C-alpha cells in the first residue's frame, strides 16, 4: 500500500490505490476477483499474487459483465476494472439484466469520468451517471479523494448490491481528506468546507475545483460551503436540505452532462420533497460532443471550472448585477 503523508490537494493516483486495495482485499477474502477487458494496468500486483482470480478477457466488455454476474451468483465479489464509456455503455444491458436484475454484488470501478480521458468523445464519459443511476438496484458513487476510494472499496465487502465507483482519469487525483478522520458511507455526502452564503455541491474531481472556487470567493468576502456528494445514488438528502436551509443559494458543479447527472438528481429531490432553494444553478457539460483537450482545458471551454463556478455563485448573490 502506497502511504503518502496527507496534504490537502496533494496528488495521488486513485487508480494505483484501487490496485493496492484489491490486493489487500483479496488477501483477506477468498471470494474477491478482478476482471477486466484489457484495462488491467492497475492490477499488476493482483495478477502476480492471485493469478487464479484474475480474468482478462480481451476487449469484450459485455462478456466481462456476464462473467462477473456468474461469479457473483456463486458467492464471489467480482471487481470489474474498466474505462467508463465501454464498461457502462457497451455492456449496459448486461449490467442491467445480468447484474442488477439479480441484485448481485458486482463492483464496477471505472476510470476516465467526465472529460478527463484526454482521448476525445469516443472515450469521454458524460452519460455514465445518468445511465447507471437509472438501473434499479445499482448504487452510484463518484469519488475524487484517493483515500476515500480505498475506504469505500473496503466497506463494499459488506454491501450486498451492485455498486458503481466513478473515478476521474485516476492518475493525478487530489487528496482532500486526512485518512482516518472521516467516516465515509454509502448514501452520505460530506461538508468539505463550511460556509453560510452559498453552497457548491460537487462530486469526484470537481470537489477540488469547488474548493478552489470557494477560495476565490472568500477573497471577495463570500463565504461558500462545499458539499462533496460522493454518493449520487442513494443521494444524501439530509446534507442537501441542510444546505438549502442554511445557505439558500445552491450551485451544482459536475464533470457530467448537466441533464442527467447529480444536478438532475438534486432537482428531483427538490420536486419530491417540495422544498426549493432560493437560487439554483448547474454547471457541467452541455449537450455537446466535447472534442479533444485535457480535462482542465475542456472544463474552461465549456464553462464549469473554478472561475466559472465562482462567477456563478457571485451572480446568484448579486441580483442587481443579474438585472444589468
Amino acid at each position, binding site marked *: 500500500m502506497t502511504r503518502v503523508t496527507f496534504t490537502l490537494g496533494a496528488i495521488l493516483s486513485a487508480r494505483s490505490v484501487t490496485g493496492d486495495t484489491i490486493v489487500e482485499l483479496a488477501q483477506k477474502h477468498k471470494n474477491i*476477483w478482478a476482471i477486466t477487458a484489457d484495462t488491467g494496468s492497475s492490477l499488476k500486483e493482483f495478477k502476480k499474487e492471485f493469478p*487464479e*482470480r484474475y*480474468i482478462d*478477457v*480481451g476487449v*469484450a466488455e*459485455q*462478456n466481462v*459483465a*456476464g*462473467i*462477473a*454476474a*456468474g*461469479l*457473483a*451468483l*456463486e*458467492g*464471489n465479489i*467480482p471487481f470489474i476494472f474498466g474505462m467508463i464509456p465501454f464498461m457502462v455503455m457497451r455492456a449496459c*444491458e*448486461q449490467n442491467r*439484466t*445480468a447484474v442488477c*436484475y*439479480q*441484485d448481485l454484488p458486482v463492483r464496477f470501478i471505472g476510470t476516465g469520468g467526465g472529460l478527463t480521458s484526454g482521448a476525445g468523445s469516443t472515450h469521454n464519459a458524460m452519460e455514465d451517471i445518468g445511465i447507471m443511476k437509472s438501473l434499479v438496484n445499482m448504487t452510484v458513487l463518484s469519488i475524487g479523494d484517493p483515500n476515500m476510494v480505498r475506504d469505500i472499496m473496503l466497506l463494499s465487502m459488506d454491501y450486498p448490491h451492485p455498486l458503481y465507483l466513478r473515478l476521474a482519469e485516476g492518475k493525478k487525483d487530489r487528496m482532500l481528506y486526512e485518512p482516518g478522520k472521516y467516516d465515509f458511507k454509502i448514501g452520505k455526502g460530506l461538508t468539505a468546507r463550511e460556509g453560510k452564503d452559498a453552497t457548491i455541491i460537487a462530486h469526484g474531481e470537481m470537489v477540488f475545483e469547488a474548493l478552489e472556487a470557494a477560495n476565490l470567493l472568500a477573497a471577495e468576502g463570500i463565504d461558500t460551503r462545499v458539499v462533496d456528494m460522493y454518493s449520487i445514488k442513494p443521494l444524501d438528502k439530509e446534507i442537501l436540505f441542510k444546505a438549502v436551509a442554511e445557505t439558500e443559494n445552491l450551485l451544482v458543479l459536475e464533470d457530467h452532462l448537466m441533464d442527467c447527472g447529480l444536478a438532475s438528481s438534486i432537482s428531483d429531490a427538490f420536486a419530491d420533497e417540495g422544498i426549493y432553494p432560493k437560487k439554483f444553478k448547474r454547471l457541467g457539460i452541455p449537450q455537446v460532443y466535447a472534442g479533444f483537450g485535457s480535462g482542465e482545458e475542456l472544463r474552461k471551454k465549456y464553462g464549469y471550472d473554478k472561475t466559472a463556478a465562482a462567477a456563478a455563485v457571485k451572480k446568484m448573490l448579486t441580483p442587481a448585477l443579474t438585472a444589468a
Partner: protein
Amino acid sequence: MANQKEVERLQDLAYEMRKKLIHLCGSYEGPVHIGGDLSMTDLLIGLFHHGMNVNPKDIKDPARDRFLLSKGHGAVCMYIAMSLRGYFDYDEIVRTYGQLNSAYGMHPCKVQLPGVECSTGSLGQGLAIAVGMAFSARLKKEEHRVFCMMGDGETCEGEIWEAANTASSYRLGNLIGVVDRNKQLMGCFDDDYIHLEPYADKWRAFNWNVVEIGGHDMNQIVDALDSLPPSNCDKPTVIIAATTKGKGVKFMERNLAWHAGALSEADKEKAMADIEAGYAQIGGSK
C-alpha cells in the same frame, strides 16, 4: 452404447412432457413459446433426468451441476422438465403461469423461483454467466459442471462468441454448452438471410470440443452426456443438437407461425394426437 431401459424411461418422460406442454399451452390465454419448447424437450429431459447431477431436495447443494437456460423464452419447457424431476408442482405451473405475482413467467426469474440458477430472457447472455460460474467452480476445486442451453438463433449475438473465446482461452473443461440447433429464428429460417453454417466449425475454430447429435434421438442424447470429458479437462464442450422446431406436432414443425402461440381446443386435440402417434412410432407403450 446407452442403456436401453434408461433410454425408454427418458422417452416416456419426454412423451409425458410434450403432452404437459400442449396442455399448458392450451390452458393459457396468451402465447407460449411452444415451437422452441418442443425442439428442446428431449434435450432437457436428457439433462435434468439423466446427464446432470441435480437434487431437487437440496437446491443449494454445492456439488450440483448448474443449468442456465440462455434461451430464456423456453422457460415453460424448463419448468416442466424440472417439475417432472420433483422441483415444482406442475398443476401450480398450469394454474398460475403468466399471472400476476406468479413465479412462473415467460422468462425464468431466479429471484422469484428458487431452483432456477439464473434469470435469463435477454438472448445471448447465458454463456458468459456460465463462464463466470465455471471459473468459480474451478477455483473452489469443485467437480460439478456448468451446462448452458442456447438456441442457435441467439448465437448470432456477439457476446456468445466473446464468452466462447474466454472459455477456451481459460481451458474451462467444466463448461458444457448445448445448442438447440433447430435452424429457425423467430421470424425467419436459418439461411433465409443469415447463414449459421458451417456451424460446428465455428465452435471448433474457437477451440471447443464439439459433439454433434440428433437432438430428438434419446440414444444419442444419452451417449453424448455419458461420454462428456471429465470436468477437469482443458477444453469446454459444446453439444450441437440437430432439432426441429415444434417437434412432435405436425402443424407446428418448421412453421414460422409457431415460434410462439396459443392453442385452440381443436388444435390442442390435433397436437395431442400427433404426440401420441409419434410416441407409438418409437415403440412407446405407456
